[in-house]
Structure formats: C-alpha cells, structure tokens
C-alpha cells in the first residue's frame, strides 16, 4: 500500500480550515492544483504509539445487507462489517500465500491431505460470555450446506464430506479430495456462527428472518453492534470480551451510508467522514492536495477486459482477437483514464499474485495487428477504411454498462484506436441489467466488463468449458485449457500451482478470449488524525482493530 502524507501540518489556526478548503475547491474547479510548497510534511510523525479510545466515521455507498452473511448477497459492505464482528478459523493474508491463526490457534493436514484438523483457542467467548467451541464450527458447517437455507457460497465447500467434533476445542474437516484452496475455503471463506444463539431457529426459516438474527446477535470479533438504522448508520463499538489483549484501540466505528460519491468526498473534506472506501481517480488529486486528509492506494484484484464473444463466427479466429489486442494502445488508454491509479495487465494472474507467473506482455503494435488481420483474410478492398472478408465488414458493437466513467471512456478510446487498423467499432453504453442480460444471453459482440480474481486461483470461471452459459460468457472452450484448469485444481499443495498458473498465462496470451485492459488501484481517503490503517485487496478495513485516532483537539 502506498501512503500519501498530507501536505500541511496538523496544527493550524482555527478558521483557516474553511479558507484552505475553499481554496482547494476553487483550485480543483479551475482545473489546477494548489502549490504544494507550504507546510512541513514531517510534522505528523511525532507520536507513533497507538492510543485507546475515540471513534472513526466511515462512509459507505450502500447499506449493510445483514448481520448474517449466509442469507444476504455477498456485498463488499456486508463482508467488511460482518468480518469486524465475527471471527473465522484463520485469517487470509494479503500476500496470497499465508493464513494466520485466529479462532483456530493451529491446524494440521492429514497425510493424504483429505483432512484438516483445527485446534481452537480456549480464550475466545461470544459476547454473552459463552465459549466458542468446536460445536459452533460444526453448526456453521451444517448451515453452509443446508439445502433450505441455500447459502449462495455453498459451492465453495462442496468438497467437504463431513465435519467431526473431536472434542470441545478440536474439529476436523474431512474432504472428498485434496485441492489447493481447501484451507482458504473452510478457514477463511465464511465466519463461524453461534450455535447456542442461532441454533434455535430452523435453517428453513433463516432466509426470511434477517431481523431475528439482529435481535439475537452475539459476536466473537473485535467489534459488536450497537445500532443499525437502515440506509443511515451502523454503529459498532469495541467488544470488551474480544480475545486479543488491548484491541481494538477504537471505542467506536460508525458507518454512515452516503450513496453519492460527490457527497462522500465533500464529507471527507469537511471532516464529517474519516474514511472513504473508494474515491474516483479524478478526485484523488483534490484529496491529495487537501489539508488534513491523506490518500491510501492499494492494488485491487479486479481485472477489466474486453470479452470477445468467441461463440460468434466473427471472433472465432484467435488471430483476429490477438490483432485486436495488438491494435489497442493499452498504456495510453490506462494513463489517460486512470493516471497513476491503474496499470495494463497481460495475464489473469495479476502482478504480485504469484511471483514467476507473470506473462510476457503483448505490446502495442498496430503493424503486427494489420498483418495478422490480413493473414486472417481481412482486407480493405473498397478503400473505405474498414476491412472486409467475404462481403462482411469488420464491424461490431462494443458494449459496457453506464454509470462507470472509466469503462465508458475506454469505449470511445478503443473505437478510435481500432479504427486505425481498419476495424469499425460501434460503442454502446447500456443500463447495467440490460448489459448483463445481453452478455448472459450471448447476443453481444464484445463487451468491456470486469471480474474480481479470487484468491483461490480457481480460474475455471473465466476459461472452463463447463462454465459456458454461466461466468464464461465469452464462450471460450479448449480441451487443453480445461485440462490445465482441472490439473491445477487437483494439486494438493497450493505451492505447486506455479507451473499451471504460468501455463494459463501462456494460454491467455496465445488465444486472447479476453483482451485484458487494466488492473486498478483502490483509492481510499483517510483523515490524517486516524492512524494504523492498512487496507488491502482483501478488506479495506482489514486491520480496523488496530486503527487509532489522535485525541480530539
């Protein structure tokens, strides 16, 4: 994560704030940045000792779905808030490799790696004082797999055959086969639920009883829920029974639902909000220049790409798809849309995810693109600037969803770039649901869309024949690729996935069912009085329990 320190010292005469803000806004409106010369950037490094107490106010664009993550859609907000209240067996780390002990103090694999046995801590209690035991884990597993409850994430634990309570503190997960993300799926995939409290309600009634869970809420995480006013505010306070000595530092974390991004920005600059999850890249400079606010940037796992509808004859030829990628100047595209907050990518295995799996980039090479197109039979014989083949023009519709500035900008830039290699692109931005229907129905030509790459490295959703009609909406199908994907799922040890990930990068490079465009950073804004925040691609509030604030002045 990169941290951009505030430009001005913390202590300033009262009343100067409004003037400075006014200046910043006026400057931003005028399209220029204020002179960064003033102030002493080292002034806030004075005291690094965390302090207990105080509160932070965090801005959400959407409301919490509910306190029971099994019965509501898996939104970012729900995950961020629920995971501050409940523990998982282990805690996935942002390095894509390690899992740290949490509720479980240790675990071990059986020889055949088909069993993982967890040893639970003995000092974790629910907020009503009842100890967290192996029974809670077993209960949680039953909830995950109950057909009436119908948890939408149940597919992630399909390979678990049964969960065995060995004693109060020991619990074993038995799998039907060994695979690389076994530990992630059961130890970090979902939180452990309180059997003594929530076991009273039959699973069949869970989906329609969201309020019941709130009324019968006990937690074992660092924070507990004080109040939740729908569409307005969620108040968490430190859980005094939390097991980590001295944590969390904060007394309170108050989440406020502010749906409009511009309003969020204003509230951050005004000091009404201490933290904003996602700023638009256009606003980043303004926040960086503002007084008392800092910018936090960190790489996310979302890839944005052009998906070519491979099922259509037009895009069936990999040479044509490669030509498109050669014909798009992704560096310029990304720079002009994102500035420093994104980078072009060439493999679905994103930079930093797996050292050694990086694919060699396909450069911007319009000549190469033209040659490939000619080789595939596409030539401009009638001299109208657009290539044809067998009476058909090389023209298609490129769609994306409205409401996403970056993608809409990309539409137009790509249209312009591809025109230079004799391709006629008709860009179209559609309402989100309309686009989804078109894409899922397979009636589109090409689409700018995005996926979040799962840390399980299970890439079947993008490339496997079995996922056509579902997530593999480009319709890519290749037996050799399927074999690689299956083989990767069969290696027992995560560490042994490297060669397969490299091979997948090669397949993507060769076949280009997707032209990968960019990976962007999350750009969060934080008031400078808040310290210790270390957001990452897993959770922006990953270590909220270690955040602390300077005392109010």
């Amino acid at each position, binding site marked *: 994560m990169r941290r951009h320190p505030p430009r001005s010292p913390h202590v300033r005469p009262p009343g100067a704030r*409004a003037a400075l803000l006014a200046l910043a806004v006026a400057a931003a409106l005028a399209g220029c940045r204020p002179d960064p010369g003033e102030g002493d950037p080292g002034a806030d490094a004075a005291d690094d000792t965390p302090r207990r107490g105080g509160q932070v106010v965090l801005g959400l664009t959407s409301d919490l779905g509910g306190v029971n993550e099994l019965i509501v*859609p898996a939104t970012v907000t729900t995950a961020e808030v629920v995971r501050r209240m409940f523990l998982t067996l282990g805690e996935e780390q942002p390095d894509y490799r390690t899992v740290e002990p949490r509720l479980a103090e240790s675990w071990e694999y059986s020889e055949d790696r088909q069993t993982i046995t967890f040893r639970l801590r003995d000092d974790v209690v629910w907020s009503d004082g009842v100890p967290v035991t192996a029974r809670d884990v077993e209960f949680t597993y039953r909830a995950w797999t109950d057909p009436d409850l119908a948890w939408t994430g149940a597919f992630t634990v399909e390979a678990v055959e049964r969960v065995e309570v060995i004693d109060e503190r020991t619990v074993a997960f038995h799998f039907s086969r060994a695979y690389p993300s076994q530990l992630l799926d059961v130890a970090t995939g979902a939180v452990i639920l309180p059997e003594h409290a929530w076991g009273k309600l039959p699973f069949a009634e869970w989906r329609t009883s969201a309020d019941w869970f709130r009324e019968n809420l006990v937690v074992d995480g660092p924070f507990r829920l004080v109040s939740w006013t729908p569409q307005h505010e969620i108040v968490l306070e430190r859980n005094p029974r939390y097991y980590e000595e001295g944590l969390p530092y904060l007394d309170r974390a108050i989440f406020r639902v502010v749906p*409009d991004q511009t*309003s969020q920005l204003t509230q951050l600059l005004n000091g*009404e909000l201490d933290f904003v999850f996602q700023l638009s890249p256009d606003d980043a400079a303004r926040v960086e220049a503002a007084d008392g606010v800092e910018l936090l940037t960190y790489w996310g796992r979302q890839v944005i790409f052009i998906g070519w509808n491979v099922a259509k004859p037009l895009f069936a030829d990999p040479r044509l798809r490669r030509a498109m990628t050669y014909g798009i100047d992704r560096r310029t595209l990304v720079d002009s849309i994102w500035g420093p907050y994104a980078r072009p990518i060439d493999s679905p295995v994103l930079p930093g995810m797996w050292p050694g799996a990086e694919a060699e980039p396909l450069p911007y090479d319009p000549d190469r693109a033209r040659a490939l197109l000619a080789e595939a039979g596409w030539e401009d014989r009638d001299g109208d600037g657009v290539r044809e083949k067998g009476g058909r023009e090389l023209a298609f519709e490129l769609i994306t969803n409205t409401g996403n500035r970056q993608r809409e900008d990309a539409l137009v830039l790509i249209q312009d770039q591809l025109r230079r290699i004799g391709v006629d692109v008709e860009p179209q931005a559609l309402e989100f649901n309309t686009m989804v229907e078109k894409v899922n129905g397979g009636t589109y030509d090409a689409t700018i869309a995005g996926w979040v790459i799962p840390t399980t490295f299970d890439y079947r*959703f993008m490339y496997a024949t079995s996922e056509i009609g579902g997530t593999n909406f480009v319709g890519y199908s290749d037996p050799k690729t399927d074999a690689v994907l299956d083989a990767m799922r069969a290696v027992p040890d995560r560490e042994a996935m490297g060669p397969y990930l490299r091979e997948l990068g090669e397949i993507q490079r060769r076949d280009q069912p997707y032209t990968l465009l960019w990976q962007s950073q999350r750009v969060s804004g934080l008031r400078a009085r808040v310290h210790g925040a270390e957001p990452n691609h897993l959770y922006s509030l990953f270590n909220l329990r270690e955040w602390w604030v300077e005392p109010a002045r």
Partner: protein
Amino acid sequence: MGGARAVGRGAGRRGTGSAGGLGGYLARRLGASALLLLLVLTLTFALLHAAPGSPADQLVTPGPGMAERQARLERTLGLDRPLHEQYAAWLGAAARGDWGTSLFQGRPVSRMIAEALPATALLALAALFVEYVFALALGVWSARRRDRFADHAIRAVSLLLFSIPTFWLGLMAILVLAHLWPVFPAGNMTSAGAEGWGAAARLADLARHLALPALVLGLGTGGATVRFVRDSLLDVLGEDFVRTARAKGLSERRVVGVHALRNALAPLFQLLGLSLPALLNGSLVVEVVFAWPGLGRLIFQAINARDLPVVLATTAVGGALVLGGSLLADLLHAAADPRVRHRREARAGV
C-alpha cells in the same frame, strides 16, 4: 385489497341514488383511486418483469456452476412460475396484509417501509413548508409589483428554479452551504454519535440536517408555485369585490392580505394535492444526494437490485399517498370554495 370492496360499495350507492352528498362522492372517489392503484401496480409488475435482469443475477455469487445455481435459486424464489400466477400470489398476500420479504435483505417489506416512511414524511412536510412560504412571499410580492423590476426578477428566478434539475441544485447547495461556507452538514439525518445526546440537542441536530434537503426540495418544487400564486392573486385583484374593498377605503395591506389573498388561496389547496407527486419524485433524488434515509432511497435501491417485493410495496405506498393527497386536496378545495361545494351538492342531488 380493501380498495376492491370500496369499488363495489361506491357503485351500489350510486345505483340506488340514496346516499348522495359527501358520502357518495367519497365512495366514488375511493373506488376510482383503488382501481387506479391496481392499474399502476399491474403495470409496475409487468414492467419489472419485462425489463432485463433477474434478481437471481445479483443474488448468486459468481463462480463455478453459476448458471445452474441461478436456475435453482429462481425455482426456490418462485420466479420460474408463470407471471400471472406470481402476480396473483403477491396480490392475494398483499390483500391479507402480508407484503412479503425483501429478496436481498430477508426482512419484512412492511417493516422496511415503516422505517423509511417517517424520514420521507418529515422531509416532505418541511419541503412543503419551504415551498409555500417561499411561493406566498414571492408570489404576493411579484403580483403587487406587477410588470415592475421585482416582478420580472421573481418570475425569472422561479422559472430558473423550475428548470434546474434537483440533483444539480442539491450538489450546488452542498458545495456552497456545506463546503465553501460550512453552515450545514453535507448529508445524513443526524450527526455521528448523536443518539447519545439530550433531546434538545438531538432536535437541533435533526433540524440542521433537515435544512438543506428541505430547502433544495422545497425550492425545486416551489418555482412553479410562485407563478401560480402570482397569477391567482392577479386574477382576484381584478375582481369587483376587491374594487369594492378599495372603494370602502381599506388599506392596501388589508385589501391584498385579507380579502384578495383569501380568495386567491382556494385554488392553492388543489395545487397542494398535486404537489405531493412532485415532492415524492423530488425526494427520490434529494434523498440520494443528501443521504437521507427515506422511501426514495428504498425505491431506488430496490429497482436497481430488482428486489420485486420491495418495488411493488413501495409503489403501492407511493401511489396511495399521491391518490390520497389529490383526494384530500379536492375536499379542502371544496371546503374553502363555496362554488365548488354547491356545484357538487347540486350534482349529487340529481
């Protein structure tokens, strides 16, 4: 649905011609309103299903086997049944008072609406107050300075307010009054942590948060009302009784403020009823811009997510409010204006 019974009763009374008067009028109006509401709901239902996208698209976690999981979920939620069956089931349950459960939150829809309604009602009332104080003040002033500079200026301003998108007006209000000159908070209904304060402090806090959204919503809808008040007053000022009042030597203040204004206000009641749809419409936008936790936000979110039970129920509530408002306005108008009352009584007596 209660409304369906009212239709039958209303028709019956008219048939026998026995009830007449206000009772018969009310029954007829209620019946017509219920029919209209049913029509709106049917249309909403049909449109929601004709629009692309299914709730299952957004409920299912992307990953292996998504198509199959989606289909299974649609079966679980009953979304694979024929449309008329789904609609009949919803209508039947709604008539029994069961508005179902949100597909996305697993909460009773009636409770979600009950939580959101007070915030919207508060905002709408405050906005209505702003709208009418603003419209009366400027409208009267404008009428009294007819064709002079103030009149032209006020008419220009009201036209401007009428044409400015509420969204933009809201953002500008935030920029100027919450940011450049921070007198008001930029959004939300209360300050963070206000729930621990004393009653007086909380009330003041609520008022501070209410000010900007109410101002924006009130002024946004008030532009047209200014012109209405002005024109209505000018009409009345030309009438004989005003000349009589002036001839009696009453002060201009009394002539305009008491005699003319009272008569000019009667049609305003009707406008009040028509203001309600505009206010509800505007609150959709204002609530999003100002993070105001009301019905508009609920509708907005439910439509985007295709949360069918919530969309249908909020449409029903919004529709009932609008129809009820227009009915109330007509009754008030009748009460205030003897001519309307008499006409109606004459008709009812036939």
